[in-house]
């Protein structure tokens, strides 16, 4: 078992960052950023998820194999999203028959 050396102070800082992220998400939800609405919300969510994975789940200080496992999870999620979006983004390209 690897020794985890994250200090208590770091945990509090990460916790504060997560809270700040939540507040930011709420604030941004009331702003009309046009096309950027979704990307901004997803970016904040991604940052928060990374903080949880790296610090609270100790991936930052884990072995390379553990990092590989975590990265594989992210990669597979991207496969799911990427190929699904590949359908959704191109569905209208041919138009409907008769139109």
């Amino acid at each position, binding site marked *: 078992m690897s020794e985890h050396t994250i200090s208590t102070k770091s945990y509090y800082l990460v916790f504060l960052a997560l809270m700040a992220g939540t507040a930011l998400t709420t604030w941004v939800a009331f702003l009309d950023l046009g096309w950027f609405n979704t990307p901004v919300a997803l970016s904040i969510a991604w940052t928060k998820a990374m903080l949880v994975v790296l610090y609270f789940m100790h991936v930052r200080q884990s072995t390379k194999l553990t990092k590989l496992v975590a990265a594989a999870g992210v990669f597979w999620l991207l496969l799911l999203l990427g190929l699904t979006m590949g359908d959704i983004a191109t569905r209208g*390209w*041919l138009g409907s028959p008769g139109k």
Partner: protein
Amino acid sequence: MITAPISVPEREHYLNASYGLKSWLLTKDHKRIALLYLATITFFFFLGGLFAVMIRLELLTPEGDMVQSETYNKLFTMHGVNMVFFFLLPAIPAVLGNFLVPLMIGARDLAFPKLNLASWYIFTIGGLFTLYALLSGGVDTGWTFYTPYSTTYSNSFVIATAVGIFIAGFSSILTGLNFIVTIHRMRAPGLTWFRLPLFIWSHYAASLIMVLGTPVIAVTILLLAAERAFHIGIFDPALGGDPVLFQHLFWFYSHPAVYIMILPAMAVISELVAASARKRVYGYEFVAYASVAIAVFGFLVWGHHMFVSGQSVYAGLVFSVLSYLVAVPSAVKVFNWTATLHKGSIALETPMLYTFGFIGLFTIGGMTGLFLAALGLDVHVHDTYFVVAHFHYVMVGGTIMAYLGGLHYWWPKMTGRMYPEILAKLAALTVFIGFNLTFFPQFILGYLGMPRRYHAYPEEFQVLNVMSTAGASVLAVGYLLPMCYFIWSLRYGKVAADNPWGAVGLEWQTLSPPPVENFDEIPTVTHEAYDYVSLPNGSVTPKKEAHVR
């Protein structure tokens, strides 16, 4: 002179080390847990089989005269749900995998024995939920739960069934996790990755899918339940959702799930081919890599289930090409098994008969899969009996043939008893004939345009349907026979030797049945897998210096 009978104290093994229901229900021994799974999935197999019998009886005549269409919908749904989630997915990994993975890698148990027992309980609880749904009135959505029918219109027990599958999914994740950690951390000294039996490689690949794919179906089921119960718009267009999104999420798991079924089947076949031909599997490394390639490529092809769903044509093109790609590693395996048999000293025992059955039937199933991956042809045969025949050739002709072959091969190790060989060969033949008689006519029916999931059909399809039903009766006999003689063999079967096949795997180097801790001493591995040249009789004593990679 009166002589007292000499009583030889029976050797202690995992079956007689402790007695009583409690000793089984609280066991942490992977071998006992495998047997718990064996009993559970056998129950679900025959339950699913009962639904199949009713489906085939209904289709004996063109009219819908035995059950009403609503009941028929429930029959094929419960057949699919039972067979896919509660038999085919756990069959080989949870029974043979659980029993053999630690034995094959020279370990005393899996990495997390308590988690292993928990997996069985979770699986059983999931099964009970589904059973509850069945007894309460059943579910009629098809095993695919397509929306918006499942979320909005179906009046059957969708949520109860879905919860059952959701719960059982965790069992799959935990088993996969247990296998991955065990294979990484608990291999015997000297057992490098490229000395591992191909059984382990395939189970490793299948475990990756279990861990990476199953959470997605769990989330999908939760979303389905959320829409059905709380009308949250996710999939129903009337609520602002997208029904094709459900199909994406569902098939992202459910297509790779086919590989959770077939990769462990391939695992069994690799062992059976090597042991029967007494040769190293031809192109061992390629077969090992092919397992991982199937697991990875298997995640990229799900859209071929959706060519006529309204999915973009461009996405369809990509999925079509990727689907052809996954055929390559599958073909590598089939060709390499065949090449292994070339000039092999083939023993035509029962396990090998099932192996021949697997290779032939899986090839037909796989090749017809290529037909279905072709965009144009798929439009013609989509949702017809051609598809039904295709996936039964893969799942039943593939997975169940391998499962039965594996059960026969390792039965002596699991129970310490031999099965009756002649009867077993007869059963293998019965299964093969019954299977082909059942499902080959369905290819023709599908090509002629008979759609699946209808309880009535035009009269011109009757002859082929009668053939199919007759075949199902033969198949049922073929499946009942092994169950009967396996149970018979527990008491009356010939006592098995520790290594009745003269095979070289580590599982054959311990006693039959194995002791609780598997090995008296953890073995040190000095040979590559299937080294029949150095170890001609499966003996651990080498004839000559082992070839060390």
